[in-house]
């Protein structure tokens, strides 16, 4: 079957871009119409994405490429092109679907904001950039969109620019991810100079780093390139030690947290590693690094999530942790596992964030200690949030269970100790999610708004329902007995990692975590402050997120500031001082000469005599030199 729709894949990002352009140009006069326009643009993208995905599922397996030359210098040419593969098709659907639902939701959530058209313009620009990133056929183009999604994230985190926290968070998000971006940039420079014909497209990357053509690029350079790419991925996907920006990014409007900081942009790091996976596979050291960083991030962030009291921050650390799982999957060689989890996570985490937004909308606080008892007043939100929480906790048969199980099974097959780490992290995941869920929706209302909380309007609950449905069924795309998604993505039947042990453990830790949460926060069988009274140090350590922010302030921020001040002093006193000294010296010599020319014969005589003496001494002295 011929590819009919894939050549039009460039239209998918084009719709949101047009929406962005129109909103930027006429935004102020459009206001709510503009918001609907942006939503409609994303909807068209969604439809086209679905058509393309269906086309690719039903046979058209050939990848489609198109593009034009962007820049030519001498013999080098940097093309702009797009590429439609099964992976791209999957990502298109995920991005446009979540983006559309978030657009819809935002119509309700951002209703009263007088900059609503700006908001929708930014969201459209983001959607465009994210879709461009997905379709890019070469690393440089991917990098360009990579930076663009970063800047959209920055703009949206800082959307409420009057809040000092939002300003700080936006700045931090941009700068911390930029650290990773420099890694990616240098990786591109390396590839440009080491690849045959300076090719940067993914097909060439695949061919060159294919083990069958091994040896084109030395192992050391390969490892370096892979690690630099991973640095970029770690920045975007909030991997330790560059995770610090993501929780702070929760200062942005909640729909943004769902779209950018849960479902799509933060997964771009995972997508990048998948896209350049051949480079990683060529270097065991790089694979080890990815696996270990991923596993560490998974458990590290999960423990922090246990002690946070801001509903969005709990979810943010959960996102960091889940992205860690995806990296872990890649590190143990399972692309299907990572992409599968990316796929299901996009739905249930977007659901959780939108649910959290619905709660915040109702009670005007983000502190879970001031919520409680919302289950009866906000039935749809509570039920859908509950489904999301169970899905995230890995309770079968919900989507999160299947994808997490795939990762754990792959880890077990590759390196059992990583499986243990992953299983413990899964336990913590279930625990913090049950804590969150029960504290928010069970018990008695604790805050001032809790008693009057009302369910959100339909435009907000409809996306919740859609996402909840997906959080239930999306897992069946790739079950241990039917690895359809993995096959479709990678083109070959993946070695089956299914393992009874992995399933049993993963179900057990999930249920156990949720049960303990229920015991503590609903039943009251265990006192809530049992930990903070017995081990105050540990709890405090978790509450303060292991003091990483403070550490960075000491290690980087302050030294930079001190260096800046020191160099400013150096510049004004030493460098400019030298300039002034030269000026002063010229001036001084001039003045001295003026003084010498004073018309007194005695002075001239004295100067002449002194000069004569100097001359004589100099001439005589040369003999003894």
């Amino acid at each position: 079957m011929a590819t009919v729709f894939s050549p039009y894949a460039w239209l998918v990002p084009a719709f949101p871009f047009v929406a962005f352009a129109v909103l930027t140009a006429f935004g102020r006069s459009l206001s709510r119409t503009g918001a609907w326009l942006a939503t409609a643009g994303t909807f068209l993208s969604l439809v086209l994405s679905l058509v393309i995905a269906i086309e690719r599922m039903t046979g058209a397996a050939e990848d489609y490429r198109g593009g034009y030359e962007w820049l030519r210098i001498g013999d080098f040419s940097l093309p702009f092109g797009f590429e439609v593969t099964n992976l791209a098709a999957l990502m298109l659907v995920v991005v446009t679907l979540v983006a559309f639902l978030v657009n819809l939701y935002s119509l309700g959530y951002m209703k009263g904001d007088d900059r609503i058209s700006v908001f929708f313009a930014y969201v459209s620009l983001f959607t465009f950039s994210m879709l461009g990133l997905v379709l890019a056929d070469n690393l440089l183009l991917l990098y360009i969109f990579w930076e663009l999604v970063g800047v959209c994230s920055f703009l949206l985190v800082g959307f409420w620019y009057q809040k000092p926290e939002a300003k700080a968070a936006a700045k931090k998000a941009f700068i911390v991810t930029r650290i990773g971006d420099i890694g990616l940039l240098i990786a591109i420079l390396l590839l440009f100079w080491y690849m045959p014909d300076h090719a940067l497209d993914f097909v060439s990357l695949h061919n060159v780093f294919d083990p069958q053509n091994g040896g084109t690029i030395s192992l050391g350079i390969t490892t370096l390139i892979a690690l630099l790419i991973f640095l970029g991925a770690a920045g975007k996907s909030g991997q330790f030690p560059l995770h610090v920006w993501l929780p702070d990014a929760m200062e942005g409007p909640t729909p943004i947290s769902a779209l950018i900081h849960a479902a799509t942009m933060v997964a771009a790091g995972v997508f990048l590693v998948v896209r350049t996976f051949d480079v990683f596979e060529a270097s065991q050291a790089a694979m080890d690094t990815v696996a270990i960083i991923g596993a560490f991030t998974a458990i590290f962030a999960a423990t922090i999530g246990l002690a946070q009291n801001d509903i969005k921050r709990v979810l943010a650390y959960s996102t960091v942790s889940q992205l860690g799982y995806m990296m872990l999957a890649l590190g143990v060689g399972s692309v299907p596992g990572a992409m599968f989890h990316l796929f299901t996570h996009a739905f249930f985490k977007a659901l959780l964030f939108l649910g959290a937004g619905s709660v915040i909308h109702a009670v005007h606080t983000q502190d879970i200690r001031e919520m409680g008892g919302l289950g009866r007043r906000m039935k749809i939100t509570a039920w859908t949030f509950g489904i999301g929480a169970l899905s995230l906790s890995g309770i079968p048969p919900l989507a999160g269970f299947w994808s997490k199980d795939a990762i754990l099974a792959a880890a077990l097959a590759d390196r059992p100790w990583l499986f243990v780490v992953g299983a413990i992290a899964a336990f913590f995941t279930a625990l913090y999610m049950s804590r969150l869920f029960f504290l928010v929706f069970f018990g008695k209302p604790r805050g001032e708004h809790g008693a009057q909380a009302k369910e959100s309007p339909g435009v907000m609950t409809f996306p919740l329902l859609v996402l909840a449905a997906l959080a239930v069924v999306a897992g069946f795309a790739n079950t241990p007995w039917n690895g359809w998604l993995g096959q479709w993505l990678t083109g070959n039947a993946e070695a089956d990692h299914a393992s009874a042990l992995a399933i049993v453990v993963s179900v057990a830790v999930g249920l156990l975590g949720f049960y303990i949460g229920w015991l503590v926060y609903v039943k009251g069988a265990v006192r809530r402050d049992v930990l903070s009274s017995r081990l105050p140090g540990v709890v405090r350590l978790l509450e303060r997120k292991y003091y990483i922010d403070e550490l960075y302030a000491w290690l980087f921020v302050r030294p930079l500031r001190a260096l800046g001040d020191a160099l400013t002093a150096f510049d004004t006193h030493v460098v400019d001082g030298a300039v002034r000294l030269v000026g002063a010296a010229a001036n001084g010599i001039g003045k001295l000469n003026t003084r010498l020319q004073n018309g007194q014969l005695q002075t001239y005589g004295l100067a002449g005599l002194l000069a004569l003496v100097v001359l004589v001494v100099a001439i005589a002295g040369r003999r003894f030199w």
Partner: protein
Amino acid sequence: MLKDIPVLSLIALIPLAGAVLLLFLPGRRSTWPRGVALAFTAIPLILSAWLFAGYEPILGGKAFAEHFTWLSIPLNAEAWGPDAAVASYRLVFDYRLGIDGISLPLVLLTGVVSLMAAIASVHIRKRWKTYYALFLLLQTGMYGVFLARDLTLFFIFFELTLIPMFFLIGIWGYFGREKAANRFLLYNGLGSAFMLFAFLILIATLGFSAEAATAGGNAFSFTGDYEVLLAHLSDPNAPANIAQPGNAMYLSDSLKWTAFVLLLIAFGIKLPIFPFHTWMLKVHTEAPPSVVMIHSGILLKMGVYGLIRFGAFLLPEQLDAWAPVLATLGVINILYGAVLACAQKEFKLVLAYSSISHMGIVLLGIASLNEIGLQGAIYQAVSHGLISALLFLVVGTLYERTGTTKLDELGGLARSVPFTAGILLTAGLASLGLPGLSGFVGEFLAFLGLFGSMKALTAVGALGVLLAAVYVLRSVLGITFGPMPERFIGMKDARFVEALPMVALAAVILVLGVYPSLLTDLMQHGFDGLLKQLSTKAGG
């Protein structure tokens, strides 16, 4: 038809004509001087655009050349030995203008930034007639610098920019304007002295040629004609290349090195290269914003241009040998400028140090000595010119309203002047190298070029990209984000006359970022001669 009119001369001299015309017009109010200045600034831009449309890269420097002998000064006549014929010497000044892939982008930059600065001069409040006359004179100097193909002519135009600039800073600047103007003139005058010295070395050696023997004996001439110098450089029979005892015209290695270092200092002051940068801090803070647009946007690029045009093309071996030095200086510029920009409390100083940092990237591109890097250097120069012009345009607009450019006195302006704040944010993002805007292309090409030869240095230099994010966001968000102080309530956003150049500059920055071929296609073949020379030197 384009070939029939002396379009290059027109570009260079029309502003001068405008300045002369202004002298005969009333200057009591701003209307007349401003109108004339705008018209005579717009015409060269239109002509440059015409050049742009008709330019064929393959022709290189030969396109649109204009040449005639301007002055010929007899020097001396002498007879060597008893039976030798009389040899007569003369010094020839040529009026030669030309254009190629390196100068055309800068001519276009000059046109765009000048017009925008002319529009932005609406904030000038006194002595309009003098201001605009000097402004036009300055333009003639700048166009001349980029168009001249003769060392002497170049020098004259180069000096011509100093005088109007001196008065523009000294009369219309802020509080410390006179000191800044003095510093500017002295420092640049010193640079010119170095340049003149280097030029004389080149004229006395490479510029020497024997002309056809006449009845009166042999005739020799010295010229600064750039084409002649280039031809002699690659001609093994040229006197400058014959190492013979008694050949006073021989351009020895030590002479080459002297000339190279002199040129490096001369243009290094203009660029500026650390540690010759302190003069430009004063100019950035004390000159009126519309003049800083010209200064930061175009005048600094004369340093880039001179370094490439004379340093690289006439002394390629020296540049080649010193490429690591140049790259190191570039990295120092990048990091030193960036760290200092992070620590400034005055927005104009942030921008000044950021200029130092960005010019370091230009140095990296030059040091790469390959086509990618060299094009990157020019691209970065053009892009930085546009971006800093835009930034100072915003500075001028904000200062008009707030009366301050100190970071801790500003804040929350996104609420009171959303349009201007949006433009400031765009310019800031362009400055920190966001892809899709022009800053990224120049940076990327320069890094890409240098990475081929000096990997570690490039990687260190790339840290500047991170610091750029720090200082740009710190200052731009400091101005626009955060709670708005009460005194900014009710402030009016940019007027049409202020918004127009902002939108125009932002559009050019965007177009160059999205479609860089627009500019790089011009530069194709621009470096062919240099690269050929380098490769033959390396091969032979």
